[in-house]
C-alpha cells in the first residue's frame, strides 16, 4: 500500500532524502572506543616513547606489577610497546583505507558516467579483480614492491581498490540511471560535475559504512603483512611485528602476545561497531515499533446488522510523533456491495484499508470502537487462516507485488496451499477456474509463466484471480488501476465488476479518481486529511449539484473529461496544420 508507506514517511519527516540521524548504542560504543584508540595513538609515543624502545630492562619477564604484559627479548615493556605501536598501525591502516576508497570510488563512479562500451569493459575488469582474495593480492604486491611501511600501505590500498570499485559501481548504477542524473546530463552538465553534485552525495551513507568496514579489514591485513615480515622493519614496529616477535616466545612467555592481540581486536571491533552503527542509523526502519490495533473504550455507535464489514471509529496515529493520520472513520459494507473510498494521497484512504486487513505499517497505532468482518472481531486475535480466507487484496502495482522469480501458478496458489491447506492439485484447479473467470487467455499456460511474460493488465487480472481464489467475503482493491493505461483500466474494472456480480463478494475500492470510482461503486466515501468529508449514496445522480462538500466538488471538477465538440466535423485535412 504505497499510501501507507508515504503517510508513515511524511509523519516521521524522513522520506527518501536526507533523514534525521538516529543514534544507537553500537555506534556510540564504537565511536567511544575509536576515541580511546585515537588518544592513545596521539599521546602514547610522546609519553611512553622512551620506555617502549629503551633497552636495559630484564628480558623475557612474565606479568609483574611493573610490567603487567611482560617484557620482550630485549627487556622492553610490552604494554608501552603495544600502546606506542598504535600510532603507526592505525595511521598505516587509515592511509591505506583512504587511498583505496578514493581510487575505488573514483573508478566506480567514472565507469557509470563513461560511454557504454567502456562501462561494460570496466565492470567486467572489476569483477575479474574482485575474484582474487584481497590478502593474496596484497602479499603479491608487497612482495613485488619489497619490504617497508610505504610498500605495505600501497599494497593494501591496491588490494582493496577492486572491492571499493565494485560496491560503488553498484551504488552508482542506480543513481546514474535515475531521472535526475539523466536530466542533468541532457542539460549539458559535464560528467565530472554530475559525479560531484549528484552521484557522490546520494551514495554518501552506504559509502561511509563501507569505509568503516574497510578500515577494520586494512588494520588486520597490515598487521598480517607485518606479521610475515613484509611491513615495519626494526627498529620501527607495529602490532603485526609485535605479534611476530611474541609468537617465538608463545610457549615460554605467552603474556607478551596479549598486548598486540587485544589492541588489534579492540580497534577493529571499534571500526566494525561504527560501521554497523552507521548502517543502522541510516536505515529508517531500524527504530520503528510494531503496529498496534486496540479496542477503543467508548461504546460502539454502529449496530452489527447483517453487514459484511462494520468499521466503527477507526483512528490511526503515528506512534512517535502522535500525529493523527485517520480520525474517527466509520462505515459499513453490505453483502455484495461495492464501496469506494476517494481522496488524494495522504488522505488516509489506504491506511483505513490497511487497518481492515490488519496490515498496518510499522510505527503506527490504530484503534476502533468496533471492527467486525463477517462476524469475526478483528480487534481481537484472529487466526491468520481465517483472515486469509475472508479478505482478498489487490494492490496498485502488479509489477512489484509479484515475485519475478516464481511462476504464477506456484506463487498465486500459495495462500491456498499454505494457509488453507488445500492440496497442490486442488489449489491449481481452483486458480485455473478463477483465471477463466477473469478472462485470462490460455489459463493453463499462464500457470507456468513468470510475471515478466505478462502485460500489466494481465498481471492485474491474475492478481484478482488469486485474491478471489479463497472466495473471500471482502475484496480490498487499493488503486488497482492507477498504474495502468486507460484501455487496460477499463478491462480490469470490468473484471472487478463481474467478479462482484457473479460471486457476491463485497468490494472496498480505493482510488484518487472519482471518474473511475463512479463507474464501479454503489456508494462512495470522500476522504480528506484523515476524515470522511462526504458520503455519496446515490451514484447515478452524481453531479456538481448533488454533492455538498467543496472538496468533493473540486474532485469532481478535476476528473479529466473528454468534451466532444457538437458541431459537425468538417472535411478532414491530412493531419497537418
Amino acid at each position, binding site marked *: 500500500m504505497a499510501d501507507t508507506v508515504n503517510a508513515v514517511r511524511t509523519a516521521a519527516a524522513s522520506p527518501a532524502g536526507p533523514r534525521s540521524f538516529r543514534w544507537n548504542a553500537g555506534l556510540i560504543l564504537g565511536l567511544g572506543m575509536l576515541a580511546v584508540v585515537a588518544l592513545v595513538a596521539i599521546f602514547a609515543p610522546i609519553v611512553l616513547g622512551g620506555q617502549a624502545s629503551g633497552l636495559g630492562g630484564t628480558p623475557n619477564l612474565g606479568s609483574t606489577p611493573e610490567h603487567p604484559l611482560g617484557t620482550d627479548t630485549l627487556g622492553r615493556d610490552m604494554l608501552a610497546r603495544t600502546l606506542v605501536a598504535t600510532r603507526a598501525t592505525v595511521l598505516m591502516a587509515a592511509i591505506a583505507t583512504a587511498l583505496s576508497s578514493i581510487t575505488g570510488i573514483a573508478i566506480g563512479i567514472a565507469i557509470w558516467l563513461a560511454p557504454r562500451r567502456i562501462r561494460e569493459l570496466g565492470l567486467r575488469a572489476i569483477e575479474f579483480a574482485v575474484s582474487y582474495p584481497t590478502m593474496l593480492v596484497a602479499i603479491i604486491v608487497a612482495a613485488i614492491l619489497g619490504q617497508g611501511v610505504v610498500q605495505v600501505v600501497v599494497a593494501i590500498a591496491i588490494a582493496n581498490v577492486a572491492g571499493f570499485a565494485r560496491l560503488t559501481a553498484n551504488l552508482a548504477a542506480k543513481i546514474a540511471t535515475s531521472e535526475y542524473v539523466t*536530466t542533468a546530463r541532457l542539460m549539458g552538465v559535464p560528467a565530472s560535475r554530475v559525479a560531484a553534485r549528484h552521484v557522490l552525495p546520494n551514495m554518501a551513507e552506504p559509502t561511509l559504512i563501507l569505509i568503516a568496514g574497510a578500515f577494520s579489514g586494512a588494520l588486520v591485513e597490515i598487521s598480517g603483512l607485518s606479521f610475515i615480515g613484509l611491513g615495519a622493519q626494526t627498529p620501527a614496529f607495529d602490532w603485526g611485528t609485535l605479534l611476530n616477535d611474541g609468537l617465538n616466545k608463545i610457549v615460554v612467555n605467552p603474556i607478551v602476545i596479549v598486548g598486540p592481540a587485544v589492541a588489534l581486536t579492540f580497534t577493529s571491533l571499534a571500526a566494525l561497531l561504527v560501521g554497523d552503527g552507521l548502517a543502522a542509523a541510516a536505515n529508517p526502519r531500524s527504530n520503528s515499533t510494531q503496529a498496534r490495533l486496540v479496542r477503543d473504550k467508548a461504546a460502539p455507535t454502529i449496530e452489527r446488522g447483517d453487514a459484511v464489514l462494520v468499521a466503527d471509529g477507526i483512528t490511526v496515529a503515528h506512534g512517535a510523533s502522535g500525529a493523527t493520520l485517520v480520525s474517527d472513520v466509520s462505515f459499513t459494507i453490505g453483502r455484495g456491495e461495492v464501496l469506494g473510498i476517494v481522496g488524494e494521497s495522504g488522505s488516509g484512504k489506504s491506511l483505513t484499508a490497511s487497518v481492515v486487513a490488519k496490515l498496518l505499517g510499522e510505527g503506527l497505532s490504530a484503534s476502533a470502537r468496533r471492527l467486525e468482518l463477517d462476524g469475526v472481531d478483528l480487534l481481537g486475535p484472529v487466526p491468520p487462516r481465517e483472515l486469509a480466507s475472508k479478505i482478498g487484496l489487490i494492490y496498485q502495482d502488479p509489477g512489484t507485488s509479484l515475485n519475478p522469480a516464481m511462476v504464477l501458478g506456484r506463487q498465486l496458489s500459495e495462500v491456498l496451499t499454505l494457509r488453507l491447506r488445500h492440496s497442490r492439485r486442488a489449489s491449481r484447479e481452483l486458480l485455473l477456474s478463477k483465471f477463466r473467470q477473469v478472462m485470462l487467455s490460455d489459463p493453463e499456460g499462464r500457470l507456468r509463466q513468470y510475471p515478466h511474460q505478462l502485460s500489466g493488465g494481465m498481471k492485474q487480472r491474475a492478481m484478482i484471480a488469486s485474491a478471489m481464489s479463497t472466495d473471500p467475503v471482502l475484496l480490498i482493491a487499493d488503486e488497482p488501476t492507477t498504474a495502468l493505461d486507460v484501455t487496460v*483500466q477499463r478491462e480490469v474494472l470490468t473484471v472487478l465488476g463481474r467478479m462482484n456480480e457473479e460471486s457476491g463478494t463485497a468490494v472496498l475500492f480505493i482510488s484518487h479518481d472519482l*471518474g473511475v470510482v463512479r463507474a464501479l461503486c454503489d456508494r462512495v466515501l470522500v476522504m480528506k486529511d484523515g476524515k470522511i468529508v462526504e458520503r455519496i449514496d446515490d451514484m447515478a445522480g452524481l453531479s456538481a449539484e448533488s454533492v455538498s462538500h467543496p472538496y468533493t466538488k473540486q474532485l469532481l471538477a*478535476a476528473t479529466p473529461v473528454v468534451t466532444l465538440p457538437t458541431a459537425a*466535423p468538417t472535411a478532414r485535412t491530412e493531419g497537418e496544420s
Partner: protein
Amino acid sequence: MTDLMLDVRGLDVTFGSTTVLHGVDVTLAKGRTVGVVGESGSGKSTLAKVLVGSVRPSAGHVDVDGVDLVNHEHTSMRRYRRRVQMIPQDPYSSLSPRRTIGQTLAEAINPIRSRVSDHRDLIASWLERVGLTPDMMHRYPHEFSGGQRQRIAIARGLIIDPDFVIADEITSALDVSVQAQILELLAEIKESLGITMMFISHNLAVVQRVSDEVLVLYQGRVVEAGPVEEIYANPQHWYTRRLLDADPGSPGFSLAG
C-alpha cells in the same frame, strides 16, 4: 518552411531486431502544442527520446527547428540540447534528493558553475510563476508534495527559455486533483509564453486540455493525426475510438466492454 518547429518524416527507430517506430510523420508549427497519445509500448516515449537526441533514428528525416537530428555533429548537440527541454514523468526521481530546489534550478541555468546567488532573481520569479514562493529555493525535494515537485520540474524545464518543450506523461504519477492544477498551470504558461510543446499521455482527456493537435500512436505507427476538435469529434481509426471510450470521463464509457 521556417515556421515549422518539428518536421519529422518517415522516422524509423529499431532496437536490435525490434522496430519501435515505423514511418512516423509529425509536423508542428511554432507556438502550437501537439498531444501524443498511445498505450504503453506504443513508442511515444521513444519519439520523445529521438527529439531530445538521446536515441538515434534508424531511418527517416528528423528536423527540429532547423537542426537535422539524423546527420548531426557531436559538438552541435550540446547547444541543441539546451534549446529542447524534456520535463520528466516521475517527480519523485527527477529531483536530486541532496540538492536544494535553488541548486537544481541554478544547474539548469548554468550547468557548469551552477551558483544560486548568480541567478537568485530568475529562480525566484520562476518559482512564483509555477505557483510556489521564492523562499522555497532553500528547501530540499523531500519537503515538497508530488504536485509541488512537478511544478519545480516544469520550472527547471522552462527556466532556460527553450524553443521546444517535451512533457512526457508528467501528470500520470499524480492524483486527479493535482493533475488538474498542473494542467491548468501548463495551459497558463503556454498562453503567456507562447511555447511550442509536445505533450505525451495515455489519457485523451488530459491531452485535450492542453493540446492544439493530437497524434495517436499505436504499435509504433501514427494511426491518426490532426487538430484536436476534429479528432475528438470524428475519430476515424478504431483504436482512437477505443481510447475515447475507455476514458472514465468520456460519454461513451461503460464497464460492459
